[in-house]
């Protein structure tokens, strides 16, 4: 089981908004493949899956705010 965590983006940016999940719970995701789309004040990002596995849980759905270091999902 691995948490998908928002990494530090840049100085002064401590949060982002979840805008789109590329996968649903129970989907198989491949390491390095786009998992979730996020937006900060400055830009829009795609966060890739850190490992291959089953997306067990989405902790923050679209429209929610995520802080740097916070877990967004769990992959097993």
């Amino acid at each position, binding site marked *: 089981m691995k948490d998908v965590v928002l990494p530090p983006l840049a100085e002064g940016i401590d949060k982002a908004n979840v805008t789109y999940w590329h996968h649903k719970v129970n989907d198989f995701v491949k390491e390095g493949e786009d998992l979730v789309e996020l*937006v900060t004040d400055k830009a*829009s990002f795609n966060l*890739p899956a850190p490992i291959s596995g089953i997306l067990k849980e989405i902790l923050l759905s679209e429209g929610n705010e995520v802080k740097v270091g916070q877990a967004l999902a769990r992959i097993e």
Partner: protein
Amino acid sequence: MQNTFPSWVKKRLISNEDFFAMKRLLSEYSINTVCESGLCPNICECFSRKFATFLILGRICTRACGFCSVKPSAHSGLTLNAAAEWVKKDMPGTVDPEEPGRISDFVKRLNLKYVIITSVTRDDLRDGGASQFVKVVEAVRCISKGVKVEILVPDFGGRRESIEKVLGIRPDIFSHNIETVRRLYPVARSGAGYERSLDLLKTAKDMDSGQLTKSSLMVGLGETGEEILDTIEDLKAAGCDILTIGQYLRPGKDSLDIERFASPEEFERYKTAGEAMGFKFVSSGPYVRSSYLADEIYYKGEERSYERCCAAAIG
């Protein structure tokens, strides 16, 4: 937060152990980077490949450009004399004599082969910080033989002695960003001058025709495509060799709005136009930034000059 980024303006966020190691090390050496201060969306990618643009002369800028997130001093935009008054109160920070040593140690530690040095604008300093640029470059070259050094300088208020001083160190690339089109200078680059910036690039070529020069331009601040092309022509007329063009992204609510997103095709048109005008290399795309993949651009520019020299020699 702006939620309406077109599909081509989405950066992949890759953060691996190399990225975190780079971040930690920069902090350990107390080195500022424009990657962090400028909230650059490419930061994960560049730090992961041990690439950063060092921001010297402190973190507080004496200008307050409408597109930039580097912290302006409360007194940005003051005249030189007034700025000199408040700097006595230590506002943007005194010039740090340890800075050249810290940067050169860092370069040595990571065995970096290509280094970019930039700075905040320091209108409060008599030489605009030119001598600190010289000290940093000399320190880096002294400790790390064969390293390539690109400097991305402020306009030094147009002061000739400062410009000559930094050119005297013969950087591998002398870079100064035009940033935007002539018409938008009053709103986007208050305190700077379109002609002054062009003159800076021209001076570099006049002093030494072999000096490689580079400049960068943003799209999306409200300019027209025609104005972009005019600016590219002006840069060419100033002898600029390398051009980078990217999408403006608003760093925060207080900064200028994004007027539009240029399409990948539009960026491609600028690249084609620039290359047709004779630039040695043009990098153009939504996430292109002044220092993005600067090492690759440098080597491609060099290759292009070499090919041209060979072609000319053959006749």
